[in-house]
């Protein structure tokens, strides 16, 4: 299943903030966590995470520090700030509202959740 770009972009802020709310982390580990959480269904282009992190940093939602990792390379770790926590709570309220609305309409439709069609999944191009 391929999730469209707009949805990925819209959900990136709450997902990154929530992952950082669990613990301080860095780029690669954040992406790994996204993959775990989504069961591989959310495929982010790796590089795109970094502009998102930098935007959150500029807005004061996260802060970064540079540390030498066990690999011997310098690595930038990100930490959520109190403003970021507030933003996360706000995002969560909004997403819950969206989620509740969708749930309501799914129930009203009585449609069975379509199983992912292997044919359509195969025909979709892999995201760049």
């Amino acid at each position: 299943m391929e999730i469209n770009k707009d949805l990925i972009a819209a959900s990136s802020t709450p997902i990154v903030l929530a992952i950082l709310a669990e613990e301080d982390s860095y780029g690669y580990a954040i992406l790994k966590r996204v993959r775990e959480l989504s069961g591989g269904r959310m495929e982010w282009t790796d590089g795109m995470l970094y502009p998102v992190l930098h935007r959150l940093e500029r807005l004061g939602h996260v802060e970064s520090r540079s540390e030498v990792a066990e690999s011997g390379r310098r690595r930038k770790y990100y930490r959520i700030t109190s403003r970021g926590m507030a933003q996360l709570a706000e995002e969560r309220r909004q997403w819950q509202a969206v989620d509740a609305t969708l749930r309501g309409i799914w129930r009203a439709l009585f449609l069975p959740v379509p199983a992912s069609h292997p044919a359509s999944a195969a025909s979709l191009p892999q995201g760049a």
Partner: protein
Amino acid sequence: MSTPGDAVSVEEQIARWRSYLGRRQAIHSVDVAELEDHLREQIAVLVDAGLAPDESFLVAIKRMGDLDTLSREFAREHSERLWKQLVVVPSDSGEPRARARTDAIVAFCLAVVAALAIKVPALFGIQLEDQDAGFYARNLSLFVLPLLTGYFVWKRRLDTSTLRWLAVAFVAAGVFANVYPFAPGGSSFPGDSIEALTALHLPIALWLVVGIAYAGGRWSQVGGRMDFIRFSGELFIYYVLIALGGAVLMGFMAMIFQAIGIDIEPFFESWLLPCGAMGAVVVASWLVEAKQSVIENMAPVLTRLFSPLFAAVLVVFLGTLLWTGRGVGIERDVLIAFDLLLVVVLGLLLYSVSARDPRSPPGAFDVVQVVLVVSALLVDAVALWAIAARITEFGFSPNRVAALGENVILLVNLAWSAVLYIRFLRGRGSFTSLERWQTDYLPVYAVWAAIVVLVFPPVFGLV
């Protein structure tokens, strides 16, 4: 598994990828390091899973994403790193050379038109020297700013609806600059010239119109307005440099022609100076656009240099004021002097804000900025206090109302900036809110200038 040969080639490939990435202006070396760390970890994981190193490299690169998209994404987030290219339509770099040439030709033609436009009224018998000097003073900005706006309209390919509004603004400015009977002695306030007020304020109001054309649809965004602030600062510096060069040229011309007994002063006064001054505005604008990376950091460098010096002077002045207990002498022009002081402080603040990486933590220079702004506010408060105490004695003349209005506007801008800056220093706010405040406040200046041009003449008895 991995032979040494393999390892070397992957190292080489990573080095090549790194240098390729480093050439992108939007991606700084610290970002490259961050991305490289990611790439290496990805490769290591894939090698552990059994892939050959070079295969791992390819997969990791693919996952990282296409470099053009990536650098565009970085550019969008870090607009301060390439503020000028961003305004131009992104990434259609087809024949950039040809475009640069067309750009230069158009700018040059517009500069020539601007230079000639200032001489057009002379054809109708309005001479630069004598009693018509007022006409030129009032309309000076109208000779060149429409052309400059036209340049940006062409360059940013603005749509016709925006174009219509820009044209309306210039026509209105032209009407209001000339409709009032600005005869000498026409005002009921002798010594105050409403004409001079119009001449001073019209360019400020019209500069906003230029800004809207410059931002080309990005005016509603903080980034677009911030780019315009950067552009204005660099333009000012370029203009001063060109003026200095022009002065040297004229000095030599006068000297060598004097040697053969020809006085070329009339030529200077009626042709070289006015035409050069007009054309140079367009040329300087084009230079700012074209030569971005050469002198890009000029305004921030000057700010770095002069912020501490101005802060020191103001603090010493305040200290002396307190120590000696002297009052501020209220001369005729003291209000204007303090307005100029606030303008300079605002400029120092603005250009340090525009060049600062919003992500970096508060540093010593930020403290200097806050000291500068707060001390300027205190000095201005002292002056305003002295003036307010005696305002009834002075009466409200147009000059004083205009200067007072400007002082209040600047004071509000700087005071709230100081609050936001202190919040940022104490870790309670982000730097972005300071940027937003500064850019949101820009139209206030233009609106006040427009009020002075439109409302002052009838209010102060010209009609």
